């Protein structure tokens, strides 16, 4: 059975518990994100990825767990550290690489780049480079969901740095006042760019911020993919039933620096060490093996096949044509 070639399913959030197949799918989703990001790192150093890029190794469980709890018709907004969320929602890898490489075959025709991956058909309505910029947009999508009356939700991912910017506060307030089905998912990796959270924020448990808006909040181990799935499922169900927004703080950590080749020297090596031990790509397959749900050989096969798929996608992307510099871009600006 070729496990890597089965599509990652977007889970039906009404399922009370995960099946073995779901668990394998969660693992496969995390592997795809990890392998994609590792390749982006290599491609960046080879000069194929331009400008800057922000990688999410270590944070895969948030993207994979949350995506699995959502419906295909839910809306998602996210940040410049967004490759994981795109892949978890099924964005085509070759089109994603091609976008980072600036090719015309990119998902945004090479016009957006790493920080602006958008795939409206998959509900990925926008990737926002300005910290906090996507949160009001997510509130609008949440209002659309409420008006549509079909039980959709709007999910927005952001980092710990975003909880101090105006757009966050306005969005949180508006979502709560209007009772919108918005999930505010904070990936607290303890660093806003190069600055540790204790220098910028009065407390480290960011779920407290929700209290200021009388909003339901939950804190979860962001490296435990099943815990993320459960928290998001539960909040999504509440939102779908008209119960309003939820703030979900996911405690996690990024293995790499903030962007590009940032060596992240501002982090305490002991802190890094302790988080690397909680790498979801190490912990989860070990748990699954222990529970007899995924044999180590099968897990290794998934990794190998994903690496092969990543290489193939990279090669196809790198062979893609450049957009024409002389082309008139007006049709891509105005309808």
């Amino acid at each position, binding site marked *: 059975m070729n496990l890597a070639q089965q599509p990652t399913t977007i889970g039906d959030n009404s399922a009370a518990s995960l099946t073995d197949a779901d668990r394998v799918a969660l693992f496969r989703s995390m592997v795809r994100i990890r392998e994609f990001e590792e390749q982006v790192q290599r491609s960046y150093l080879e000069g194929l990825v331009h400008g800057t890029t922000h990688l999410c190794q270590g944070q895969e469980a948030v993207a994979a767990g949350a995506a699995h709890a959502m419906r295909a018709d839910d*809306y998602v*907004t996210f940040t410049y550290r967004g490759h994981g969320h795109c892949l978890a929602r099924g964005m085509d890898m070759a089109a994603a690489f091609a976008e980072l490489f600036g090719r015309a075959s*990119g*998902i*945004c*025709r*090479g*016009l*957006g780049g790493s920080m*602006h991956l*958008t*795939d*409206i058909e998959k509900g990925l*309505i*926008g990737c*926002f*480079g*300005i910290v906090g*910029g996507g*949160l*009001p*947009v*997510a*509130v*609008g*999508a*949440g*209002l*659309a*969901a409420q*008006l549509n009356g079909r039980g959709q939700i*709007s999910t927005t991912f952001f980092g710990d740095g975003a909880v101090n910017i*105006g*757009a966050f506060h*306005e*969005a949180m*307030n*508006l979502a709560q*006042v*209007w009772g919108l089905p918005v999930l505010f998912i904070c990936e607290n990796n303890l660093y806003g760019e190069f600055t540790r959270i204790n220098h910028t924020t009065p407390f480290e448990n960011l779920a407290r911020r929700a209290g200021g808006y009388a909003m339901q909040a939950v804190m979860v181990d962001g490296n435990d993919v099943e815990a993320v799935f459960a928290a998001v499922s539960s909040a999504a169900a509440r939102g779908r039933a008209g119960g309003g927004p939820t703030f979900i703080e996911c405690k996690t950590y990024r293995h790499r620096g903030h962007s590009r080749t940032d060596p992240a020297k501002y982090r305490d090596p002991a802190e890094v060490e302790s988080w690397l031990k909680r790498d979801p790509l190490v912990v989860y397959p070990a748990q699954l093996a222990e529970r007899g749900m995924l044999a180590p050989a099968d897990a290794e096969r998934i990794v190998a096949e994903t690496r092969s798929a990543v290489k193939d996608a990279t090669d196809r992307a790198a062979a893609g044509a450049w957009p024409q510099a002389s082309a008139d*871009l007006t*049709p*891509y*600006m*105005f*309808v």
Partner: protein
Amino acid sequence: MPEITYREAIVAALQEEMRRDPRTLIMGEDIGPSGGPFKTCQGLYEEFGPARVRDTPISETGFVGAALGLALTGYRPIVEIMFADFLGVCFDQIVSGIAKHRLMSGGRTMVPLVIRAIGGAGLRFAAQHSQTAESWLLSVQGLKIVAASGPAEAYGMLRAAIRDNNPVLLLEHKALLSLKGEVATGSDAVEPLSGARVLREGTDATIVATLAMVGRSLAAAELLAKDGIAAEVIDLRVLRPMDTSAISESVRRTNILVTVEEQAKLGGWGAEVVAQVAADAFDELDAPPARLGLPEYPLPYSPPLEDAAIPSPEAIAATVKSLL
């Protein structure tokens, strides 16, 4: 044709488009049961209800960004910004989000939204509540910017803006709200947003203006007519994308160009008009083009100072004469 006020024209346009398309909705501060601080949403809440006519908290970043989210998910939101000055609050959502989204997505998204911003000086609201903001976003590619100089424009351009599938910033002027004019309401067809319009024909000078400066330019043309000078007055109407072909055509006949804007000249649209006309009709100019605008300091409160800051019909006429 019935005569209605600028304010009533806005209400009529909103009513007609909201009746026509159930995907439209309007948000803003105090626009619900109160009908808006300037009564530009009178009766909408009673007709369309709280789902489609929403009072917002004082959160321009929040609700303008929400408008982008609604536009991306199949709705056609209209936002009322109470004072155009408040565009400074939600500036990022407009310039980094709304204006750029479609291009950054490779043309795969559509952002059909309208921001109506009520601005302008002359009512003693002082420096923080008197911007027309007509030049604040002038350089933002991806945004359409239009300015309504009278009731027919307020009506026609708002309907066109709502039907436009692109983000449109519609500038309205608070000193024009009670201005009356003939407006043909109720038709199904709407002229799409297009460029400058000649309001008064003339042979001796071309005066280009927007918003409240259009009325003052028409008054200046009356003053000039008494001295046998026939000025042609053009309402620029669409600031972005800016089409000055009608202005160049006019200057080829009159040979004199004056622009009048209610913003600082430095960084204002007047310079852009001059640059475009100079490129198109350089040899037709008999004198260097002149620009009128606000002084190079924030608008003062005291009535004689505010009045002196805004170009008067007399000052516009004097400028034209100085070039002849």
